[in-house]
């Protein structure tokens, strides 16, 4: 029996271990597979297959339900009245409109010759 490093054991302890390991192989019976080995194996394979099939079926149902729900929500949302939008113009237009409103309320900004606030 060779050691892990490929050489013959020199140490008596190494030799004893090599002897024990070689004898262990002899002492371990070679088990003969029973006649039920293959039928049992196929039974286990079938059982696992049916679990996988069931899981796949459940997944398909869940995915189908999720798609149907998404479509339904899409239809419901698109059929509703559009919400009032606060900003319809561009940023510059909104800024200009805001400025015009503020200018209208500010008395300093109103020219004196117009005769207001006299």
């Amino acid at each position: 029996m060779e050691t892990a490093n490929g050489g013959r054991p020199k140490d008596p302890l190494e030799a004893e271990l090599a002897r024990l390991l070689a004898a262990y192989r002899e002492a371990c019976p070679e088990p003969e597979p029973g006649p039920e080995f293959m039928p049992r194996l196929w039974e286990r394979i079938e059982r696992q297959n049916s679990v996988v099939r069931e899981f796949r079926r459940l997944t398909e149902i869940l995915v189908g339900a999720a798609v149907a729900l998404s479509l339904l929500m899409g239809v419901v949302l698109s059929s509703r009245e559009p919400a009032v939008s606060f900003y319809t113009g561009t940023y510059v237009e909104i800024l200009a409109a805001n400025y015009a409103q503020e200018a209208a309320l500010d008395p300093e900004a109103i020219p004196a010759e117009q005769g207001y606030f006299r």
Partner: protein
Amino acid sequence: MLVDFELVKRAREGDHAAFTQLVQAYRKRILGTIARLIGRPEDVEDVGQEVFLRLHFSLDQLRTEEVFEPWLYRLTVNAAYDYLRRQRRRGEARMADLSEQQVMLADAAAGSRVQQEEQRRRQLRETVQALLANVSEQDRILLILKEIEGLSLKELEKIYRVNENALKVRLFRARQRVLKALAASQTGTARGGGN
């Protein structure tokens, strides 16, 4: 290879007859390896079934037919490792852990020559298993594959997908621990004999 690549290919493609042939070709070898890895004859067939069950559901992941054997050994190692880990968790008593009285009773029961031979083998198995119990499950499996199953470092490299040097280091360390345990047991025996 115990079978040709064509059979592995057919089994990979879902041919049930080919898979059955594959199992029939390898089951004895795999059961033998499992017996030596787990050391419990009563559970060998269950672990063997687990190996072939895993093989059935992972055959499609096999890259090429050439790596079939290392792949099968990897599945065997994993199943044996899972089994040993479960056993450790359960904390079941092994034969090596039996009391001296129980062992003596078993010895007394072994009367005939055949029984004596079986008794000798059982004691040897227990001795080696007790020595191997001094290393982790992974190292125990590695050591058995190398030293008892006789797999080469190249084959182990393919099974473990680890480079040869790393395997050598692990094997060396595992061996050292087993040797230490052997030395301790011999010292204990010598002391016991001296009393």
